[in-house]
């Protein structure tokens, strides 16, 4: 299980084989702007978590009503 989690985490880290060069000075323009893509994936993830929270609240309501 731990190995699977490690593989999943590693798969999110960009592998830029020969990317010693930088094209900009700030964090996001670093390494060919790869962190912009990382940020995009993060936003995607936040969106999906947001949907989970929305479902969670609906189900919680339902559970509460059934208990009453």
């Amino acid at each position: 299980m731990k190995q699977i989690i490690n593989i999943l985490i590693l798969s999110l880290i960009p592998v830029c084989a020969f990317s010693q060069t930088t094209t900009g000075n700030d964090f996001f323009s670093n390494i060919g702007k790869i962190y912009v893509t990382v940020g995009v994936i993060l936003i995607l993830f936040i969106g999906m978590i947001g949907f989970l929270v929305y479902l969670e609240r609906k189900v919680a309501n339902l559970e509460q009503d059934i208990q009453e």
Partner: protein
Amino acid sequence: MKNLYKILGAVFVAYSLVAGMLIPLGTGIINVSPRVAKGGEPLALKIKAYNANFLQDKENYEARIRLNPNKAICANKVIVENDQELTLHFDLPLGKLPIQTLTEDGKKSSFPLLEISGTNNGYSSLESAIYIKDSLVDNENQNQNFCKIAPFTEVSESKMTFPFLNILEETIRNLFYHVPMWFAMMLLLLISAIYSILYLAIPENEHYDVQATSFATVGVLFGVVGIATGALWAKHTWGAYWSFDVKQNTSAVALLIYLAYFVLRSSFDDLDKRARVAAIYNIFAFAALIPLLYVVPRMVDSLHPGMGGNPAFSKLDLDNTMRMVFYPAVLGWMMLGIWMSNLGGRIERLMRIKLELEE
């Protein structure tokens, strides 16, 4: 079998995340110096590359500056400084150089185009790489040391890479995360509109109303994620989160129309009336979505890749490596979106059943 599309969706999205981030970019030219040169003089052009591996190509490197589709100045010496840097030596010809600055339809052309090619690194180019001042010499004295434009030597082994495009650079990978959002949103909202039509056509079927709302919810979620990811990307390529580009504006308007759909729903207490009015509104909202996302942006010039001569799909259309990740990503997000919508619909239906039981 019923759950097959859920598994496929998860697998496709996981694949697009892994492959989309792991496959490296091809070699690209980031910078050249000097940017200005004078005709008739020798030129030592230093180039700085990205993701290059020049030391492996030490023996066999070709470089040229293309002035127009038929004429080029070839480098007579290529010196490999280190893995990311080359020095190209040119003898610039005297006289007026036939640089084609405009394309046939009056747009700025890519010339002078710097092209380099090595057996290991493959081909890379930089548009409008250098400004060459003409030397004022009689045309008769002009020494025409142009070289023939022959195809570069073939790349020995074909490596899996995504194309390097200036400005886009690594963010070319956003094609697998930002663009599928819009494709999936379009499908989910289409399904929502179909459910609305079904609700109006088939009487006494609350199920269709529930499904229409649920699909619209997830569709709008995908749209919001699409706008947010687009804004983050725009900040680092266009310079601002929101630059009032047609694509940004029309997609924001389309999402606002759908937000009004939810406001409309929540403003009715009577379930039956609410479902009917919302269904009619939903059909009109979808009808407005198509021109907003697919017609208006095509009629005006936009900064968005693939439009107004901006690099993206014209080049990517040919790139098979990107397609291999892009299509599964689109399909995967579509299937995940349908799954998410169905989940929301099922919970909503349970709530309706609970309401009926109470009565």
